[in-house]
């Protein structure tokens, strides 16, 4: 189980990466993260929605109401152009971070 302290700075990047493929909603994103990481990382509900709030405030994502499924009206999120730019910056940042950290990992 991964420590939430370590991953905190990259929750936004994970969500943006999934939204790059297609617009999605809360549960689907948390399920995708769980499946992609084979259950090694499970994003908490509150972490997910903090990230949505933050990303939307920074205009990296936009929300809209999707079509109803199982009688539920869901809030979907889609990535914006500045969200894509931000995602690319975070990817570059991670590459450097990874390079630096690997020098200390035996």
């Amino acid at each position, binding site marked *: 189980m991964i420590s939430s302290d370590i991953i905190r700075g990259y929750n936004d990047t994970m969500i943006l990466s999934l939204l790059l493929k297609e617009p999605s909603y*809360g549960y689907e994103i948390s399920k995708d993260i769980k499946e992609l990481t084979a259950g090694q990382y499970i994003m*908490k*509900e*509150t972490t997910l*929605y903090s990230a949505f709030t933050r990303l939307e405030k920074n205009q990296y994502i936009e929300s809209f109401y999707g079509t109803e499924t199982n009688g539920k009206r869901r*809030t979907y999120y889609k990535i914006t152009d500045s969200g894509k730019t931000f995602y690319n910056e975070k990817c570059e940042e991670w590459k450097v971070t990874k390079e630096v950290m690997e020098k200390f990992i035996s």
Partner: protein
Amino acid sequence: MEIIKNYLDSMFANLPVNQEMIKLKEDLYNNMEDKYMELKADGHSENEAIGTVIANFGNIDELFAELGIGSQKKETVKARKVGQTEAETIIKDKRFWGKIIGIGVSLCIIAPGVLVLLSGLTNNVSFGNFNLIVGNDINSSGSDIGLLSLLSFFIVLAMGIGTIIVGGLTLEKYNFLQKEVLEVSTSAKNYIQQRKSNYQTRFTLHIVIGIMLCILSPMFLIIVASLGNPVTGGSTGAAVLLFMVALAVYLFVSAGTEMDTYKQLLQEEDYKPENKQENKIVSAVAAVIWPLTVIVYLVWSFTTGSWAISWIIWPVVGIAFGAFSAVVSIITKE
């Protein structure tokens, strides 16, 4: 499912109910329900499913911090509650007494105008130095009018000051609006917001008229002075100037009080909870500075008779005080 619903309800219990919160809660609930259904479908027991869903919920404070409502719970303890009926009474009282105080301030400005006008009519130029009027002019009727003008001055001034004191004391019970953190009910907030936006145009109009009166008032002084008798014309002009300024000040005070009431109730601009500390400093200094200015103004004017120039103290202190408040606000914000 009832357990998850109750769990979520308890998490949101202390929070303001607004559109954003309802939507957030609904989204969270939908996700939790999806997760629960899937766990059940995967063959987990009801208890297991609920346990997992709640364990994966996380820490609600993380989310509230992001929404900027982290300190909500602490503040509600000492916040002063204001409901719609109270808000209506406050607005009604403040509007009425704001006008009364405006009249009081205007009377104080009109008072020297009355003095100038009445003394001017008697051809006594040095109206400020009443010894001259009373002492050297015993045989003429001017001394009577000199006394009369002086008497009128004090009566009008006393009426003005009396009115301000009564108004100020009546409104004192609403001082909490500026000092305490308020918790205004949603319906009251909507009502106040409505009143405020309805008032905006009239407010702007009053301020603009007031400013125009202030700008035009010296022009009248010049026009009246150049038309008539150089001596009486001058004092009539000065009186007209003071009347115009008094009217302008009435507009500023009454409009300002009403607009301030809305801002206080909505806790906007200067009245944001975080700005209330700074207001305390500024108002403490104001409580000393303004009465002191009145004393200096009256002593200076009466002892030297230089009414023509002594008014300069008002804009000077006004600007200095404005600069002081600005400095305080910069420092406290840092």
